[in-house]
Structure formats: C-alpha cells, structure tokens
C-alpha cells in the first residue's frame, strides 16, 4: 500500500514535470507578450516530428535533442516577426484566432509532409533498461526525462526570477515604452521570449517523443491541458504554472488509480474549483483581459 502510494507519487511528479515544460513557455509568452498562444501545442508537435526526422536520418537522439528545438525556434521567429509583431497592440482575442490558424496550418503541413502515421523517436542505447527501486522497476529514460526537465525548469526559474535578463523581460512586459526609452529594443526582447517559448516546446516534443508516440494530434491533445495549468496557476505566473503542473500530475496519477474513467474530468473540476475561489488563479495578481 505504502509502496503503491510512493510509486504513484513519483509517477505523478514525473508527469507533472513534463507538463511544466510545456506550460512554462505558454505562461512566459502570455506574461511578457500578452499573447495567448494556441499554436504552442503545434510547436511541441513540430519539435517531436523534427526530432524524429533528425534521429532517424542521423541516427542520434542527442543530435535530435539539440537540433530539433532550434528548427522549431526558426519557425517561432517566422511566426513572431511576420504575424505577431504587427499585432501586439490589438485585442488579445485576435491573437487567439491568429495562433489558432497557425495550429491548423502546422497540423495540416505535418500530415502533408510525414503522413499521419504514428511515429516514435528511438531511445538512446545509453538510457535503455530499468532501475529497480524497491520492488519497482523504473525505466531509465523516464528517470532521465524527470531529471532533465527538473534541471531545466530550475535554470529557467533562476533566470526569470533572479537575473537581469528576467528583470528586463518583466520590465518590457510592464512598460515597453519606458524600456524603449532606455535604448533597449523591445521588439527584440519580445521576439526572444516567443522564440524561447517555441524552443522549449520543441525540446519537450523531442524529449517526450521517445516515451510517447509522435502523431499529428498530439498538439491539440496537450494544448487544453497546458492552458488549464496556466490558468489555474494564474496567467503569466511562472511559479503558478509549475506548482499547478505538479499538482495536475499528482491528481492525474492518483486519479487513474482511484477512478480511472473519470481522470479527464478531474482537471476541469480542479480548474473550476480554483477559479471560483480565486478568480485570478492561484498566483495571478493582476486581472487579465
């Protein structure tokens, strides 16, 4: 019994950290740019596909993990510069329609290029096998995902909350004209943030494309879950997104144990519950439009 609980908790944390990877980019983009990025899931999917292409042609998972996110970053630059940049002063609703359009386009393009067949990125040989914890086998690769995502999020945390870069980013979001007046090119900061979010989504795509299947529907599959996390945490709140991702991870894994058919509903019950008590999310300070 105790073992089942410990084990389920571990699985929940692992699941939560992978969600955090995706939610982090989403919340950063919203926090800084005020953009609700519906294409975030599509970028995650694109990362997985690029990763699959690199891994299967060059035969190296590590190269895939390095290159694929950069390719996604390039797509991110194109989207930001060509479409978002002229639209920052518009009502954020238009960003939904715009990024929705991109999400559909990317999904269509992926089916066009690689077909809809489910793929999977080959596991690196060095991370094959399992690690036995008590009487429980834990796959090495999943452990690797847990460690990498935790480290990555830790680094981003420090960067956003402690460094000058983070201060600059937040300042740009808060008062872009002031930052502009200081001689810093705000539009470059915005591009940077968007691309960073895209790279992060792409990275998550490659990382998860090994232990999960790669398919065109994966982007739309994850986007609502990621949104729910960002909203419960409080739009734009970095900490909120991470705590909530972990919470959702735990709720899902324990939920699967208790009432497996209803796990999907827990997510929304949780969101409704939180928002009714705290209408701006757990860590949302200001009101969003």
């Amino acid at each position, binding site marked *: 019994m105790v073992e*089942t609980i410990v*084990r*389920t908790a571990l*699985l*929940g944390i*692992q*699941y939560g950290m*992978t969600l955090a990877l995706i939610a982090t980019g989403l919340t950063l983009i919203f926090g800084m740019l005020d953009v609700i990025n519906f294409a975030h899931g599509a970028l995650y999917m694109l990362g997985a596909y690029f990763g699959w292409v690199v891994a299967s042609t060059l035969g190296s998972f590590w190269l895939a993990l390095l290159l694929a996110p950069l390719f996604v970053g390039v797509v991110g630059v194109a989207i930001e510069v060509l479409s978002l940049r002229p639209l920052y002063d518009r009502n954020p609703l238009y960003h939904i329609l715009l990024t*929705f359009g991109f999400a*559909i386009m990317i*999904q*269509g393009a992926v*089916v*066009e*290029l690689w*077909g*809809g*067949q*489910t*793929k*999977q990125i*080959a596991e690196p040989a060095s991370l094959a096998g*399992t690690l036995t914890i008590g009487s429980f*086998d*834990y*796959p090495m*690769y*999943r452990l690797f995902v847990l460690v990498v995502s935790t480290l990555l999020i830790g680094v981003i945390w420090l960067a956003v909350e402690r460094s000058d870069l983070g201060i600059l980013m937040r300042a740009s979001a808060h008062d872009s004209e002031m930052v502009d007046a200081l001689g810093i090119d705000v539009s470059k900061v915005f591009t940077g943030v968007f691309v960073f979010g895209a790279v992060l989504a792409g990275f998550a795509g490659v990382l*998860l494309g090994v*232990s*999960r*299947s*790669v*398919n*065109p*529907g*994966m982007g*739309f*599959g*994850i986007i*609502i879950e990621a949104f729910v996390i960002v909203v419960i945490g409080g739009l734009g709140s970095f900490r909120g997104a991470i705590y909530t991702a972990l919470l959702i991870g735990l709720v*899902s*894994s*324990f939920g*699967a*144990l208790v009432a*497996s*058919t209803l*796990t*999907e509903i827990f997510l929304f019950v949780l969101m409704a519950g939180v928002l009714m008590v705290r209408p701006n999310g757990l860590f949302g300070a200001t009101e969003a439009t």
Partner: protein
Amino acid sequence: MVLRAMGKRSNRSESDRSAIETVSRRQYLASGAAVGAATALGGCVGGSGGGSGLTVGFALPFSGTYAMLGESIVNGFDMYLEQNDGEINGEEVETVERDTEADTNRGVSVTRELLVEEQADAIVGPVSSAVAMAMMDTIKNESSAIWLNANAGDYRVTEQGCLNYHFRTSFNDWQTSAPLAEWVYNNVADNVCLAYADYAFGQNSKNFFSEAFEEAGGEVVGEVGAPLGTDDYSSYLTEIENSGADAVFSFFAGSDAVNYVTAFTDYGLNEEMTQTGSGFLLSEDTLPAQGEAAMGMYSLLHYTPTREAERNQQFVSAYTDAYDSSANVYACQGYDSAQAFAAAVEEAGGSDPDEMANALSGMELESPRGKFRFDPETHEPIQDLHVREVVESDGEVPVENKVVNTIEQVESPSWGCSLN
C-alpha cells in the same frame, strides 16, 4: 467541425501521401480533366450519377491522425480498379473522396453529400464506429446505394441497424476479441487483467473477451479503463501490475496502442505477464513505432500481411509496387470492398441498390485474407481469424506479426438481426 476532428483525441494513424496524390489526380481525370480544379473546389459541377458509369463515394478520414487508414482503404480499392482497367461490368468507375475528419456530424453530412449530390452507387467507409452508427439513418432514408463498411467494427451497426444495404467488408469487434479468449485460456494463462481504451469500441471488446474467457473457465482478476487518447500510461500500469494477473488482454489502437505497449515494456511488465490483445494493438500501422517493445505479444485479427498464402503474397507485392508502402489490414479491407462492389454489380447486372444487396448476401469472396463470405442473416463477414505473435524481422521494421494459429471461418452472433 473542422477543429472538432483535431481536438478530439484520436487513436489511430497514417502514411503515404504520394499515393493519395495520384489517387486524387486520377479522380479528377475521371471526372473530366477540364473541370478538375473546379470540381476540387466546387465539387458541384454537374455532379455525376445519372446515365452510364458507376460512382463510388469514400466517406473516410483523410486528415488528422486517422488519415492513414482512409488513404490505405482508398489505395486498396483503387488497386483493384486498376487491375481491372478502371471498369466494372464494362462501366467506367468514378471515385469521389470526402473527408469525414473522423467526426460524427461531419460523417453524416459527407454521406448525404455523396448520396445526394454525387449520386454514389456505393459508400465505402467509415473508419470510426461512432460515424458508422450515425450514418445508418441517412443510408436507410436515401436507400440509393449499398454500404461497404470498410473498417467500422461496432457490432451495434448490426444489432441496432440491421440494414439490408450494409455489408461489413472488414470485421466486427466481437470477431477481434471473443475468439481469442479460448486460445489464451488454453495456451497462455487461466487468469487475465483487462486493459482498454474507455470508449464504445474498447468496452465492447473487453466485454466480449471477458464473457468468452469466463465461459472457457478462466478468471478475470482485474479491469483497467483508460481514457481515449491517454499520453502516459504509467499509473494505469501500476494497477495492471497490482492485479497480479499472468496475462493481460487489451484493446488500444493507433497512438494509444503505441503509448501503451511502449510503457508496458519500459516498466518491465512484459517480464511478469503476457500481453495479448485485439489485433489493432499490434498492427502494421503501430508496429514501426512500437518496435522491439512489442516482441512476444499476441493478438487476433482477420488479416496479416505476412501470412503465407499465394493470394496474399500477390496482393502484398502488388500493393508495395503501386504505392511504395507496405500493405496493411486497411488496404485489404479497401481491396475487398472493391471486390464486393464489382461482384455485386456484375451479379445484379447494374447498380440498383436492392439488387446489389441481394446479390451480395451470402456471397463468397476470394480475398488476400483468405476466403470469406457475407452471412445472409447479418451481412457480417464469416472469415478466418489469425492469432499472431510479434517476432523479429529482417525487414525495414525490426518486428513483424507471425501467424501462430488460425481459427477458421468464424461466424459472429446475429444480435437479433435477421435479414434473410
């Protein structure tokens, strides 16, 4: 509707785009090259129907995660036409593709469009059972075409619909689950845990299996349902492991099957229990992604491309030549739909739907899957089912299915349907 198909967690898969391009191009040629582009967009230039020529309407998914199934079915159908110079009974055959997006309401609209606007003589499709259930009314009301059900396996199409026009050129969910139970009991274990995708098809499959397994004398020691489209099966596997069963019977398909099988082996459950399942768990569309994680698992299906039989090998190599991709169960179902349509037209001497239906009832076809015939009572296929084991392969994909046992000419229950 557009977005619905995307957001809906899908659980299947796809492939070769170049093949469908040729198909579409041919379609335009058939409908008159001059109006090609206009037909593509408008689809309404004069329609077809009337006069001479036969029209086949594909109500299949061509976008999203189900796209590969739709394309394979069309490829299979097309291959038969090509082998017969595009003609059936001396009449030219035009094919029209409409994307159901694997969405129920879209499926209804598309079926109506094919029947009313395109005046199709036969509807081929759909892929999802929910779409098939919803199409029944439209097919019945229009009563203008036969319906070659090339993949949707829900038994309730027969139980609730029992349509004279409906012919299952594929399988039903009873066939891909129940007959495996006795084999598992005799050869694998006397106790199982059931793990399934929690929607109609998964529920039917596990119910049929568990009924038959208990009848054979076995015991079901656990049941785990996971929502359709689950990404991470880790916690569900904990439950399966805790059941202490010696074997698992599963229904998952497409990307769910990939996620489930990969995780099952990752967590080392394959060393503790034997994985068995309905054939879609370990099919040609999922095996390349599952790879070695699938080794040693058993499944039941009506078609296996590696099965040694001359008819099958001919089909497989012709398919590979034509589409530069390997044949699969969906292609076979498409091919058999074409065979059935041709046989119906020839036997009936035309495309009157009632006469075609009468002609097909009880008819036997020589298929790559082996002989099969349509049960006169239900129009369900009476066919061989193969128990397959995943073994190593020296082909492009590291693993393949090998037939280890054949259950011959399986008849399904009639579920109260009596057409004869």
